[in-house]
């Protein structure tokens, strides 16, 4: 049995849990869309495959009324398939999960075994085979057995697929879950270690992170939000345009510079790829959360994926409003050029809900880690196969990082920061935790 084959399963999570976003999903319609998206993903895999003939011959998407199992020989085809499926399902606002592991869907199932036994019994009058038939079905004459096979035509699930189903049950997340065993086998720069908070009997009320592999979304390196200051009213004398002492250097001042993400009126957010994605996911999260607060936890895995797929290298914090170009508009004070997910996670409107989500510290931990990596140019703590320590870095925007950590603390409180510091190293490396601690303790 070739063990380098990939098998996976995709399911609409709404069918297994109470996660149905309130008043949103019509199960029948969702089922149809689901099937359509699976077919579309098949076609995309086919179109992009290096060897379509072999794909058709060796790869399958099969059976299951509630879930679809798939089997790919080529890694590239598998990746194309699951990524396409993910984007289609999110676009259609259907919560889902995809689990992938190694194995094969070709292993034996009960019915195959029985048919072999029947053949043996007829051909060679094998007593053992007859006994087996008697034992399993209670009859051994050919006609009845054939009639039974006629009656029971249901597709049955094969051994590896059963294990995969178990994995699907345990994966209480939203998105793609790759078996950890694939870490060295899949070579794609976009996979990373993601964490899923679970509550076990042993852990009691504490959320324990469980590690698995996930895929990043494609990132546009300019996918950032810019915040512009309101135009001063030319008739209002109280509005003197930009103060005389304009400060161009990003001095690290601890003054009460305005926390711009709070002031939602002035956010100038272009509807670029990731802001639409973030809005979609938050819309779903809000609805699911209303159905049951426990549902929020399902979304941490997806939020982490978004956080890990954003662009932080350009983050800028302005202590004061600043003119952008002569005679033109002004940048508001506070955060400038931040990824949409940062604005959304820290917006005052969302915070009460986000705070209640179990395991939310994993998302914020990933956020701190990604900001650090983005600003220093180092790899993220979650990347696969880079356990190395942080090298020395010259001239990085330390004050921007400091500001981000402080803002996260201001928004979510000290307790949350402590939880972040207790998270696994694949969320935030030890050296980086120390950096965070230094910032927090310096007062």
């Amino acid at each position: 049995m070739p063990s380098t084959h990939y098998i996976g399963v995709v399911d609409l999570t709404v069918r297994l849990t109470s996660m149905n976003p309130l008043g949103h999903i019509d199960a029948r319609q969702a089922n149809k869309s689901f099937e359509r998206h699976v077919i579309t993903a098949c076609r995309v895999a086919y179109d992009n495959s290096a060897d379509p003939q072999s794909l058709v011959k060796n790869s399958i998407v099969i059976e299951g009324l509630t879930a679809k199992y798939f089997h790919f020989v080529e890694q590239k085809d598998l990746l194309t398939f699951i990524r396409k499926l993910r984007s289609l399902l999110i676009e259609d606002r259907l919560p889902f999960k995809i689990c992938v592991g190694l194995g094969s869907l070709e292993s034996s199932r009960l019915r195959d075994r029985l048919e072999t036994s029947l053949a043996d019994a007829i051909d060679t009058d094998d007593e053992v085979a007859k006994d087996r038939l008697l034992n399993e079905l209670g009859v051994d004459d050919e006609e009845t057995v054939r009639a039974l096979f006629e009656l029971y035509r249901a597709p049955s699930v094969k051994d590896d697929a059963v294990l995969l189903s178990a994995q699907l049950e345990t994966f209480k997340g939203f998105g793609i879950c790759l078996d950890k065993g694939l870490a060295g086998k899949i070579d794609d720069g976009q996979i990373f270690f993601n964490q899923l908070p679970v509550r076990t009997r042993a852990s009691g009320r504490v959320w324990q992170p469980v590690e698995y592999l996930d895929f990043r979304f494609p990132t546009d390196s300019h996918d950032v939000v810019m915040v512009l200051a309101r135009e001063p009213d030319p008739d209002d004398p109280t509005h003197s345009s930009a103060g005389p002492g304009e400060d161009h250097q990003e001095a690290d001042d601890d003054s009460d510079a305005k926390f711009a993400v709070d002031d939602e009126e002035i956010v100038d957010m272009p509807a670029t790829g990731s802001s639409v994605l973030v809005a979609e996911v938050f819309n779903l999260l809000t609805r699911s959360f209303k159905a049951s607060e426990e549902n929020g936890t399902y979304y941490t895995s997806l939020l982490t994926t978004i956080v890990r797929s954003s662009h932080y290298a350009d983050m800028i914090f302005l202590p004061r409003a600043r003119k952008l170009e002569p005679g033109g508009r002004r940048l508001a004070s506070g955060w400038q050029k931040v990824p949409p997910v940062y604005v959304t996670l820290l917006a005052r409107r969302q915070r009460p809900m986000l705070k209640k989500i179990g395991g939310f510290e994993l998302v914020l931990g990933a956020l701190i880690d990604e900001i650090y990596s983005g600003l220093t140019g180092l790899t993220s703590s979650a990347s696969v196969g880079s356990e190395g320590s942080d090298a020395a870095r010259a001239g990085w925007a330390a004050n921007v990082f400091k500001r981000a950590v402080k803002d996260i603390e201001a928004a979510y409180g000290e307790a949350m920061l402590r939880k972040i510091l207790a998270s696994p190293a694949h969320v935030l490396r030890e050296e980086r935790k120390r950096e965070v601690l230094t910032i927090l303790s310096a007062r």
Partner: protein
Amino acid sequence: MRYYVTVDGGTENLWLSRRAAKMIREQAIANLRRFRITSGYDYVGLDLDGASVSGFPNLNLAGIERRLRASLDIKAATTLQATRLVVSQAPVSDDTPLDALELVLAVEEGSAFAWTEGRTNFSSVITVDPDARALKVNAVVQDLLQDLMVANSDSIQAVLRKLKPALVAQELDKQPRRKAQSEMAPVDHELLGERLFLGTKASYAAQRARDAGRRSVFSTFEPDRYASFSALARHDLYATMDPDELSGFSDLWTGLLVDRFAEHFLTVDEAVELVRTGSFRRTRQERLEGQGQKVKARTRRQDLAADDLKRVIGDPRIVTADGSYILCVVNRAPTGVAGKLEVEFTNGSPSKRLLNKLTLCTEKRYASMIPLVRKGIVTPIRLFLKRL
């Protein structure tokens, strides 16, 4: 235009999500609210919707059209005739019969950020380079929508209604039965008129871009059949327009109409009719400075007496040339600004009482009205008037 289409070329993500419409529309309308105040131009919002057409090899318009029709997203097949925007990574070829579509714009992947002439039936092709792609695609789509929303306003449409038949007649005269085939495909006058107007608009935009040698976000700006003035006025990729861009945008529209189509401007009677039957947004107090006002519906101003309107619009001291004027209508009894209002609405002669809450401004004088518009006291209505 009722919707746009995003075409998925087979990779993981669409350039523009199907659901991006809502966000882009909000941003465009936020800009147009401020545009309404600073220029007096009204706008008519578009119903936007996206449909994603899954990728298939050799994209062509006919194929996209078929997919759209089959798609659940588009209810009425008739709306397919409406203006449309195709956002696609791969070039889209066009093999539909001429005159089948009113306007199609394509945003495609290219090596430079450029606005170039369309292929066959296309009005324009905008290519976007991979650098800052998300921002560029977004900016372009927003500009296209803004421009179309302004073009839909009653003030502009009133001129276009007079203008198009004239353009069509001119065009048909120019080629007197050169092609007998035209019998086979009867010319749709409405469509032809629209196309001729948009063509003139595009050539005007190209000329302005050349004359001014202005800084543009595009590396090439060579529109052939369609040009968005909003895109031409743009200096950078931000979603919010700054005052410069707003005035550039209004300047381009006014310039086009005054420069090219002045002989089709409205007479006094037509203008009175337009004000009384057309629908215009009534201005309100701004909620936040610089944010524009939120006004849900446009209303008709039949309460304004035709005689008064005629007197104001037909004032020979103001309408001295074919041109663009702004009629200002007082919304409500002023508080605190009575003095200023009186000065503005009696042409400086304080002996007269407020002249029926109406006054006609030239472009220049409108600047002094802006504070009143901002406060929601005055509603501006843009009019294109013939010299008396």
